């Protein structure tokens, strides 16, 4: 276990110094998680791909801010979250997408997901719950973050994280009923 931590620390120090091989290790390790997180928020593989790319380019550009003593996963997901919501805001400004609840429901009911490989009932239901709750649920369940880490990523109090998880699950349960009946 100590060896893994040592290797991870070494990779972070090398990335900070601008080593491309070390950065590629980070990319290989986190690209799938980031892509899946963005995909479930944006519900479009093309946009998710763009945002994932943008996230890792930002990670490299701001590599000097890497703290080898801290968990890089939290930092990368913070960048991914901010990039995703900047992307949504910019698209909203251009009126290319609207993310109000009604529209989300329309998107989900349009069988939008199979093309993106998201075919399960949970995926469909996730597409219909509140965006704030979805973020927290994805970070907690899909990415395995702790409450404290989610609170750092989303810059919200731990109690709000817990409330969002509980309310998100309630909403999800409610939406899932529609698929089960």
């Amino acid at each position, binding site marked *: 276990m100590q060896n893994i931590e040592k290797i991870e620390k070494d990779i972070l120090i090398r990335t900070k110094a*601008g080593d491309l091989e070390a950065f590629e290790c980070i990319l290989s390790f986190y*690209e799938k998680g980031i*892509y899946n997180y963005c995909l479930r928020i944006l519900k479009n593989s093309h946009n998710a791909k763009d945002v*994932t790319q943008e996230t890792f*380019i930002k990670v*490299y550009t701001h590599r000097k801010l890497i703290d080898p003593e801290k968990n890089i996963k939290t930092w990368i997901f913070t960048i991914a979250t901010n990039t995703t919501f900047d992307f949504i805001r910019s698209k909203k400004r251009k009126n290319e997408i609207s993310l109000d609840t009604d529209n989300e429901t329309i998107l989900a009911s349009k069988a939008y997901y199979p093309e993106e490989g998201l075919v399960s009932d949970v995926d469909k239901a*996730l597409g219909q719950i509140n965006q704030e709750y979805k973020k927290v649920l994805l970070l907690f369940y899909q990415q395995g973050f702790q409450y404290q880490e989610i609170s750092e990523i989303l810059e919200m109090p731990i109690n709000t994280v817990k409330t969002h998880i509980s309310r998100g699950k309630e909403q999800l349960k409610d939406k899932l009923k529609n698929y089960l009946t």
Partner: protein
Amino acid sequence: MEKIDEQLNNISQVEVPTGMHQFVMRKINYKKLQPILFATFTLLALNFLVIAWHINAKLIDAEFTDIMKDFFEVFSFNFSFIKAILESFFEIISPLLLVSAMLSIIGAIYTGKKMNFYHFSKI
């Protein structure tokens, strides 16, 4: 609620699109190379402009347009005539200067294309 927990824990992960990893690495490589490519492009383009300006000044000094007029008046398609014309042309402008101008513009186009490729390429 436990069932929901279980379902959420088992959310499937989609594979990343082909070429995304390579695209990111290419962009990062470009970030590293960008200043070098930009400096090379600027130097080559400036070098070409200076040489072109120098050639232009030499041609004006030698009254090249008059030479061209005479050339078309007495033009005949044979080896000795063309050789004589080329020799007098190279007396005005050295072949080295021309080669240097050509290499500069080829280099500038190549670096420009490389920058363009890294900057605007999509998967």
